[in-house]
């Protein structure tokens, strides 16, 4: 999707800042970061028959995310005890949060079955988001558009067939298009809007919401860290600006930590809302 940006910005190995000597008074303009900070060269490629798999930083972070989530919860629940201690405590708090806070409240009756699905999504998305402020990783894997798209498609192909099974293949769409309690003539306007917004716009916004939040947050952090570096110069205003930018970077890191958890929560919450709408028609 960033095809134009790729061709515009020379090779992909651009250092995000303008170079080690690029400062306020050295005559180079502010090297504002753009979409090129989300492009990574492949570390190695894997040839499988006619398919080529490129492993970049993002792939590594994805695999690390899987290992972290699976590893932690396997460890936490390896020997479950009636009175939880240590890691099991944390794991249970997370589980109860997803079960009571998301599944039961949003889906209601029949929500129990979807707790593992939502639980996996919540923690996987959260860990991938958290890589954005983890020193060494410094890249939220969900800021690469393909990843939220894949997540949103998994959710989409869960709730649409589910609704077709629970409500009937035709009834599912008519229930969606003709919500009760609306004056009859309004359906001319309402039915197509409801259909488009539920079938087409939902998966799109579901993916874009997560992607854009992480993308914007990462770009914001990059802008202020580059500013802190760029403004270092032999001038009062430069030093003041640099210190201010650094402080803002630290503050924004804390803010990002909050946004990352919130977005993981919202992603899971919306998945639960969609599943709930498939299970019970509005009435």
């Amino acid at each position: 999707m960033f095809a134009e940006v790729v061709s515009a910005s020379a090779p992909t190995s651009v250092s995000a800042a303008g170079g080690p000597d690029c400062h306020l008074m050295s005559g180079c303009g502010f090297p504002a970061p753009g979409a090129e900070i989300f492009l990574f060269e492949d570390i190695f490629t894997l040839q499988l028959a006619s398919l080529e798999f490129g492993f970049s930083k993002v792939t590594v972070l994805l695999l690390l995310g899987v290992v972290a989530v699976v590893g932690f919860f396997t460890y936490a629940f390896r020997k479950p005890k009636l009175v939880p201690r240590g890691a099991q405590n944390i794991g249970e708090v997370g589980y109860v949060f997803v079960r009571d806070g998301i599944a039961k409240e949003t889906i209601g009756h029949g929500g129990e079955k979807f707790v593992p699905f939502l639980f996996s999504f919540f923690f996987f998305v959260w860990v991938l988001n958290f890589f954005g402020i983890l020193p060494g990783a410094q890249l939220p894997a969900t800021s690469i558009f393909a990843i939220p798209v894949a997540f949103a498609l998994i959710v989409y192909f869960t709730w649409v067939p589910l609704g077709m099974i629970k409500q009937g293949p035709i009834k599912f769409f008519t229930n969606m298009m003709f919500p009760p309690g609306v004056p009859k003539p309004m359906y001319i306007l309402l039915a197509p809007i409801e259909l488009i917004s539920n079938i087409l716009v939902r998966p799109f916004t579901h993916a874009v919401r997560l992607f854009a939040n992480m993308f914007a947050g990462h770009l914001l952090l990059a802008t202020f860290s580059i500013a802190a570096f760029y403004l270092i110069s032999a001038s009062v205003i430069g030093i003041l600006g640099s210190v201010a930018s650094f402080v803002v970077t630290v503050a924004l890191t804390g803010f990002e930590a909050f946004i990352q958890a919130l977005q993981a929560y919202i992603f899971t919450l919306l998945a639960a809302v969609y599943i709930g709408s498939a299970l019970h028609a509005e009435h």
Partner: protein
Amino acid sequence: MSLLAELTGSIGSIGYGLAAIGPGIGIGIIFGQGVQAIARQPEAYGVIRQNMLLGFALAEALALIGFVVPFVFGA
């Protein structure tokens, strides 16, 4: 065809600014009303908070789409 007017420069930034107006108002209303609802009925905090965040996410998506579009479709 002759051009009557042309815009150049950071149109994407202006577009984002315009796209942020609506969601800004919307998010303000959502949290304002949400806090009011919690103040009136503190025992319903869980349900109110959940719906507040849901509404916030839906409104915020518009601003974020406005933010991303200039990057995607180029300057």
